[in-house]
């Protein structure tokens, strides 16, 4: 009886969240679409400077740029529902194909930097949490300030000058060593590919790394003071077992939540990192589209990012529903 009721609640809950997600998507896409009116006029970029007034007007009409914004939006959404994002104004290639072509680069970059951020962040966080007064911890904490305070593009340029120009260990930009693997272009299987992903991945990860480090450290300090750690010590358990078996495990719940939410942030930040490193992903494509007022690409990208956030939030919500009984009660 109870499990059936629970399933009913769950269904209602997910349905509810799904409806909310759709609403968010609709609002985000509408707002972003109306913003494009202020980005500028694409026609000027699309024709040579010697095009006549008539040719310009003709293109405006072809693209329907003179229609009211609502009409343009409606036309755009009808096509989107059919899975058609149109042709890029800039390179006249289908937008959906362009995004799919560039997505692997972005996802691999985000994956690599997430791994760096999580791994190093947790290790350093645990260390600074346990040895909070050692000078190594103090250095780590001061250096980590750079990660939160310096803008991404300065960190990126700094790393390029150090590792590519001065030391000449790594390439300054681009994505080398790409291999096609069943329709997915990967650069993670070659030495060249790894060499070219290191700098952008480190740059992109620094902010998240710092955040995870500080979060883990704060949680560790908190947990280490709690009664069950004292009790564990009283039981005579080894330090290692206490630190990793008891303390770390209990710090991970908020950390996992933050990491989940920040995957979206990584993709958003990748716009800047990809521009600095000429990483051929969706972020670089978006920046180029903004310069050119390539509305179809801008619109598709924003919808794509909104969708990503909405999906991640939905998954987190559902996980909470399963994990936290208080939300279930709220649902009834």
């Amino acid at each position, binding site marked *: 009886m109870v499990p059936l009721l629970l399933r009913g609640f769950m269904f209602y809950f997910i349905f509810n969240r799904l409806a909310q997600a759709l609403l968010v998507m609709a609002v985000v896409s509408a707002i972003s679409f109306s913003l494009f009116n202020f980005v500028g006029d694409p026609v000027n970029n699309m024709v040579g*400077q010697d095009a006549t007034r008539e040719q310009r007007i003709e293109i405006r009409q072809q693209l329907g740029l003179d229609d009211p914004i609502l009409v343009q939006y409606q036309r755009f959404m009808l096509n989107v529902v059919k899975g058609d994002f149109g042709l890029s104004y800039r390179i006249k*290639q289908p937008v959906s194909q362009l995004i799919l072509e560039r997505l692997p680069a972005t996802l691999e970059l985000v994956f690599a930097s997430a791994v760096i951020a999580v791994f190093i962040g947790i290790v350093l966080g645990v260390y600074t949490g346990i040895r909070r007064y050692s000078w190594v911890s103090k250095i780590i904490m001061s250096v980590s300030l750079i990660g939160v305070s310096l803008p991404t593009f300065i960190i990126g340029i700094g790393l390029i000058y150090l590792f590519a120009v001065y030391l*000449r260990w790594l390439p300054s*930009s681009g994505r080398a060593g790409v291999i096609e693997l069943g329709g997915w272009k990967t650069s993670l299987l070659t030495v060249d590919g790894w060499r070219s992903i290191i700098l952008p991945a480190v740059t992109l990860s620094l902010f998240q790394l710092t955040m995870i480090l500080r979060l883990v450290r704060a949680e560790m300090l908190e947990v280490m003071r709690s009664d069950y750690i004292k009790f564990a010590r009283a039981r005579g358990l080894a330090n290692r077992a206490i630190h990793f078996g008891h303390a770390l495990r209990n710090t991970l719940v908020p950390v996992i939540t933050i990491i989940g939410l920040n995957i979206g942030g990584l993709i958003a930040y990748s716009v800047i990192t990809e521009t600095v490193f000429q990483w*051929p992903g969706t972020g670089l494509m978006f920046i180029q589209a903004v310069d050119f*007022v390539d509305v179809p690409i801008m619109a598709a990208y924003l919808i794509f990012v909104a969708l990503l956030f909405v999906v991640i939030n939905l998954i987190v919500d559902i996980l909470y529903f399963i994990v936290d009984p208080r939300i279930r009660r709220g649902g009834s």
Partner: protein
Amino acid sequence: MNFFNLAKLFSVALIMATAANAENVLRWTSQGDALTMDPHSQNESPTIAFNGQIYEALVARDIEMNLVPELAESWTASPDGWTFKLRQGVKFHDGADFTAEDVVFSFNRALEESSDYKEQVKTVAKIEVIDDFTVKLVTDGANPILPNTLTNVYIMDSGWAKANGVEKPQDFAAEEETFSVRNANGTGPFMLTSRAPEELSVLTRNSNWWGDSMFPGNVDRIEYRPIKNAATRVAALLSGEVDFVLDAPLQDLKRIESTDGLTTKTVAQVRSIFFGMDQGVDELRSSNIKGKNPFRDIRVREAFNLAIDKDAIQRVVMDGLSFPTGIITPPGVLGNTPELDKQYGFDLGKAKSLMEQAGYADGFEIQLDCPNNRYNNDEKICQAAVAMLAKIGVKVNLDAIPKAQHFPKIQKRTSDFYMLGWGVSTLDSHYVFSYLFDGEGSWNGIGYNNARVNEITKLIETETDIPKRTALIDEAWQIIKKEMPYLPIHHQVLGWSMKDNVDVPIAADDHLRPRYVVFK
């Protein structure tokens, strides 16, 4: 320490591995990739330059911008058009023969609705094939400068286009990209080997090219990687990953020049920077002067011209890299003379008294519209102008915005006072008159309308007597110089950076011409 040594060894080994390669590979970068490989789809300078390595036109420009034969060996004018003798024995990269039929096909393709080259070929009424290697471009009336306008109209193979379904340039109604967007089959010195847009394009030398032994270039392979970020682009040159950077920021040229193994070249670009002052409206939109338009008074225009210190802009803003001028057309373009090129000079005292005579002793207020991502130091030039005009009492409110928002203001005639730059692709003043000065000109954003200038613009379209035509052009420039409808600032300077083991001759149109590139 071991790790560091190992890493160093590793990178040295890599560098040696690439150096061992005997062929001459030109690795280069610039900000923006070609938009498409289709030769008639986008009239955009980097696209034209890139495709010009693969495709060829009937006539071309050499490094000094002289008109030289390419697919046509010679050409002669007649009252109703131009006859071109075509080069014989030329083959497309796929082996097909180049004949008159391909010329006819390509011109018709450039005239298609979806072509971005209609303006260049619009005076061509029809194309007569006289024999396999002679074509006549019949024009509506005489056109003395037709060859000048054909340097970017590239010739495609009609058979290849038909076989791949690309008889027309792509339009926006299309559902997917056409074959010619990523594939190319020209007659030029390099063949497209691989193309990953915005990542890497590889071209290889066409050893069957007709000019293979006629040009000094010894490049075997070209690898092009666009790098959008300027600092990254310079870093790629400093780290040795590329041999040549087309568009390093001007302020970085000194640093590159002083780096061992690197060198830079500069040349006056065929582009002039100027301010437009709207004389066409009865009342300026952004001014506190109501009921009349101060710019209609020539004394105000002259005062503005005299108040802007172009030498100071050159020295302080441009780091010496500009040529101050008094005419909106650079040397090398027919119509520019040293006398016209002289700037109006800087005379604050005279400027003030002119403002006084015009009744604006206390100055007035006006908005200056300026792009911030189009020309060299565009926003900084405008900021300097704001400070300089303040000295004659004019309070200038600067609105510096991205080009995508700036240019529509000029097109829609909603700007009182704006910055614009103008390049002259035909190297003939007609191109300047018809767009900037003609009463109907599509970039005449100042409402300038002088009956004689309009008349001359029409006359030189068909005047075939060269000395007479040149005199007409000069007459128009003299009128303009006197009436000062615009405020000329300077001609831009281009700066190319390269390793010093390769000689990349710089061209004023900013186009890389690898047929002249020599590895020493």
